[in-house]
């Protein structure tokens, strides 16, 4: 690939590569064939690989997920598209009671190698069920992998990793950054590991932890903080189940400070879990309370108030300042110079 591509095109590239390399891969979903998907993630694939590989389904998510379970346990690798994450709820029964438990329940005799892709998150001025982030509901489920890319290269590599995995994988695509940036992505068929964090920027003062569309915000904030002489480490969690705690713990043990950023509501969110584990494991090594920057504990607002709801760079900077001040107070108290 000689031209730089965006995250959405990287998804398309990984799907095309999988269809080409593996005859067991079948794309399956609403409006993905002739229409190429509502966001164009499957653009051109039905034409190139045929309607028997890129299959338009009825608008019926329970059946889409159920059919994918049957396909996956009988030798195929369905890659399902749920048009918006807000349409995923009818599929929960199959995802939670069947797909996620197949391996455990059959003692590994059966597995359910399916991928369910869904665009998620706010920032495109759509109503709430086209903008919400309900990843915590899925990341809570044992046996269900949840993977979220935050750049074109990671979208390509992580989607290949998801398709190669013998576990069911929920692959959530941050639609706000579908077309936000372009980079060169080599179409070499190389998968990225789907159980690792990605350290995007090394730093010693504080660890910024996020995923999806919050990663560009974290990187922007880190850039601004660097100008003030504050050196942030930025980690893309990327896999929400299971979470690569080795990387997170090593980073926060080093910096002593963590700010966790996601756009889903804070209550019961992935950030709450990460915060709890860091607190449990690093008690005594933390220099400040772990701070979460999240969406508000409410329904995703309609478009005029969307940016009020979504965390942004200034919210991250506020949290970082709070973290640094907490540390400074302690130091001042300890030295008796306050």
């Amino acid at each position: 690939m000689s031209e730089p591509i965006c995250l959405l095109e990287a998804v398309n590239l990984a799907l095309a590569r999988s269809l080409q390399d593996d005859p067991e891969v079948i794309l399956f979903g609403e409006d993905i064939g002739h229409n190429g998907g509502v966001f164009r993630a499957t653009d051109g694939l039905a034409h190139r690989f045929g309607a028997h590989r890129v299959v338009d389904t009825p608008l019926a998510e329970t059946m889409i997920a159920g059919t994918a379970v049957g396909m996956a346990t009988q030798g195929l690798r369905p890659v399902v598209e749920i048009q918006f994450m807000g349409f995923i709820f009818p599929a929960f029964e199959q995802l939670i009671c069947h797909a996620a438990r197949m391996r455990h329940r059959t003692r590994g005799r059966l597995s359910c190698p399916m991928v369910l892709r869904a665009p998620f998150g706010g920032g495109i001025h759509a109503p709430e069920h086209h903008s919400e982030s309900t990843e915590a509901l899925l990341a809570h489920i044992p046996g269900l992998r949840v993977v979220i890319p935050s750049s074109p290269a990671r979208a390509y590599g992580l989607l290949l990793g998801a398709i190669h995995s013998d576990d069911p994988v929920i692959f959530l695509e941050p639609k706000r950054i579908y077309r936000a940036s372009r980079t060169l992505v080599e179409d070499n068929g190389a998968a990225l590991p789907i159980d690792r964090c990605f350290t995007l920027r090394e730093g010693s003062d504080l660890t910024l932890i996020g995923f999806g569309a919050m990663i560009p915000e974290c990187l922007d904030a880190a850039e601004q903080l660097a100008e003030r002489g504050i050196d942030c480490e930025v980690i893309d969690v990327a896999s929400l189940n299971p979470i690569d705690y080795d990387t997170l713990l090593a980073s926060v043990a080093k910096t002593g400070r963590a700010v966790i950023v996601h756009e889903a509501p804070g209550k019961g969110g992935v950030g709450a879990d990460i915060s709890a584990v860091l607190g449990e494991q690093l008690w005594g090594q933390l220099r400040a309370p772990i701070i979460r920057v999240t969406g508000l504990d409410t329904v995703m607002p309609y478009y005029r108030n969307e940016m009020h709801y979504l965390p942004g760079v200034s919210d991250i900077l506020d949290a970082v300042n709070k973290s640094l001040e907490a540390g400074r107070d302690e130091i001042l108290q300890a030295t008796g110079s306050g």
Partner: protein
Amino acid sequence: MKPSRDQKIWMYEQMHTSRYFEECIEKIYMEGKSPAFNMAKGPIPGEMHLSNGQEPCAVGVCAHLSADDIVTSTHRPHHVAIAKGVDLNRMTAEIFGKKTGLSGGRGGHMHIFDAKVNFSCSGIIAQGMGPAVGAALSRHMQNKPGVAVAFLGEGAANQGAFHESLNLAAVWKLPVIFVVEDNAWGISVAKSASTAIEHNDARAAAYGIPGHFIPGNDPLAIFDIAGEAIERARRGEGPTLIEIETYRLAGHFMGDAEGYRPKGEKEALFARDPIPKMRQQLLDDEDWSDAQDQELVARTHARVDAAIQFARDSEYPAPEEAMEKVFV
């Protein structure tokens, strides 16, 4: 389509096996659960949904299937599992929660999976239907032989998954047969109080596929209709919906007081028990003697007794095994 003598004897033997198996399970289930019924006690804790009375549905359909064909069953799966040829020792061990069970004692009686004969079941109603459609699609896409049969209860026919699955199977003409075991009761609610039509075969018309209602819990009639439907699916002509009138001789689950049943219903059902009826048919219509019958009964009892002994003798899984096989 009429069964041969051998097929009739096979059906009769599977019905006997299932019935005796459940009679044994029923007794063992009650071990430790008296004087006060406590579901958590005894060698088989948890819920227990018996299928006695519904054996004709299983044998009339599975007589036409091979190990390659796919079956998804329900929370009431024993009769279908036995007729599909699921390993009886390991199925019994699974019900006891033992390490040697088909799922290593992780699943219990509502989660019996035997990949060797392509059998699975789900404790959630109607939710085996989508996977059956997907399995049929998989065979179709890979040009492999085999049909899928989804068993469900009549209560499940009011689920969205029922309609979504029928529609897709019909649109794509998939080799799948939907078999509704109508035992008249959705737990405690009568079919007439939950379902807008008398027989679910009428719903086939909404999807442009053949629908059949089979009255009388009759294994020979089920063999006939199911055989036609399965042959049709094998010819690539698409799905069929079959509803079978059957009898739930037990409660919804063991411990069910069954206060919702009209007086005399159970006695009337037992009077129509399909197993003695089939025995009489064999004696009347086929070269079949009392001595042969006794030999068959002894054979099935020995097989079931051995399976139960195997389950009793097996070890429980270690607690730490619960953490295995969550992810690859």
